[in-house]
């Protein structure tokens, strides 16, 4: 499979990265080079093989249902959470208007 400029524009839009024409043109051969190279995976016989998501056997745990058990990840830290926001306003994240 290969991509053209329109495909790349679509992918860039899905990824929320604005790209001008020149950037799209540049990206087309780069992505195609990589995609052609990964295509060799199609040669591998994967009959009966489960896709692997977790490499090391581990079990997902539930933590105790305790409020603020770990103060680092608990609540009540609004100012810390907002400290690095580009536009914190009145205790909230500020964003441009999203409704007309």
């Amino acid at each position, binding site marked *: *499979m290969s*991509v053209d400029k329109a*495909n*790349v524009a679509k*992918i*860039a*839009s*899905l*990824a*929320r*990265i*604005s*790209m001008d024409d020149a950037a799209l043109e540049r*990206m087309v051969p*780069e*992505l195609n*080079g*990589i*995609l052609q*190279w*990964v295509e*060799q*995976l*199609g*040669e*591998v016989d*994967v009959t009966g*093989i*489960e*896709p*692997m*998501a*977790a*490499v*090391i056997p*581990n079990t*997902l*745990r539930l*933590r105790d249902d305790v409020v603020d058990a*770990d103060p*680092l*990840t608990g609540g009540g*830290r609004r100012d*810390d*959470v907002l*400290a*690095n*926001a*580009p*536009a914190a306003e009145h205790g909230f*994240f500020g*964003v*441009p*208007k*999203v409704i007309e």
Partner: protein
Amino acid sequence: MTDLTQFGVKDIRDGVRDGSFTAREVAESFNAVVADAAALNAFIVTTPDHAIAAADKVDAARAAGETLGAMAGVPIGMKDLFATHGVQTTAASHILEGFIPRYESTVSQKLWDAGAGMLGKLNLDQFAMGSSNETSHFGNVASPWRKSGSNQPMSPGGSSGGSSSAVAARIAPAATGTDTGGSIRQPAAFTGICGIKPTYGRCSRWGIVAFASSLDQAGSMARSVEDCAIMLGAMSGFDPKDSTSLQMDVPDWEGALNADLRGKKVGIPREYRMEGTDQAILDSWEQGKAWLRDAGAEIVDVSLPHTKYALPAYYIVAPAEASSNLARYDGVRYGLRDLPDGSGLQDMYASTRAAGFGDEVKRRILIGTYVLSAGFYDAYYTQAQKVRALVARDFERAFQECDVILAPTTPTASFPLGENVDDPLAMYLNDVFAVPASLAGLPAMSVPATINAGLPLGLQLVGRPFDEQGVLNAGLAIQQRAGFKAVPEKWW
């Protein structure tokens, strides 16, 4: 007076413990050589006050007769992928420039608790995506090494290139690294130092800027196997804040180090004998076999049949996870915001990300978005995950016939900065020997073997899950026989 910057982790820790010198003297010595090494561009920010404050605490604890931690008095470099409280954390990106965390990563906190101090935040490839440290928003890192008869600046490897450069140049006795597809081992090999990536889950990922979460694993980089063992011990351990953290005791790796390999079998994977591998690398591999045989090990041939598919599988899995992880950089909660006049929320996202990410990061986000998109998901992503399962199964079978695997770390020695930047695929091939162990989550280490044409070459050891000890022991056997003592000539 002794030049304290020539000491590694163990010598500093022992010297501070027995009162040969103070932690403060060590911190001051390293702060001075860090300040003098701007030409390497290894650090994004330096934190001399942090190093001094930690040292003073250790000296006070010693004076009070308290027991000192495993890293007491050792000032280290911290890869700028670890969130550090009150100190800028950028992942070498523009999008996180100026981000000052209000929390500390688990791994860095453990190191401070063990008595280490921080010399500064080390440069890296942007979001740890790269193999030469040429994708940082804060400029290339130069290796302290140069090819015989040349003044060309050489790559320190990547993504932990600031870490490898600083440790090799002796401006830090040790540094943290992270390894997603070779980012500890390849830079360690390029710069003549040791670097170990433990079993996936040993070190908490909490507070490490995420790249590919099923692969990311922190580890230690230092100039000896012993130093790596000490530091890795301080970094490891269960963390309830990381859902993939291993709920297992951390063994005393340093205490159990043993280079006697009698009764051990070392596997040589025949598929690692690839076209395009330097003759000098193949020669060092032969030498490595002889060293391990001399240490008492039996050398056996093993097969890892899916080796050639590991790298393309990685370049689907890692970008897919990255495209998802990096969706958080939206100009709302932290980091850069680019808001052109009159634009709405969607435009703000797109222009923030266009301005904040470098080319390699964008390339990988786009690849990841594509392979996860409707219609292509099964052909690319599911297929890659299946191939990943086969790569892991290859190792499982090989470890029925051997205890540890010996292979080259990289197909070539370091290359000049700028040589591979226009060819992403050529750059990716740097990690061809490193990526399989990452996909399988296995502990793996690079140890310096020899020098060729002025540049160091490394050998790689890969172990069974949770068997960091086996990897370290074989690494120690190589270290004792290789006698790697070369030091880069100071030009910076």
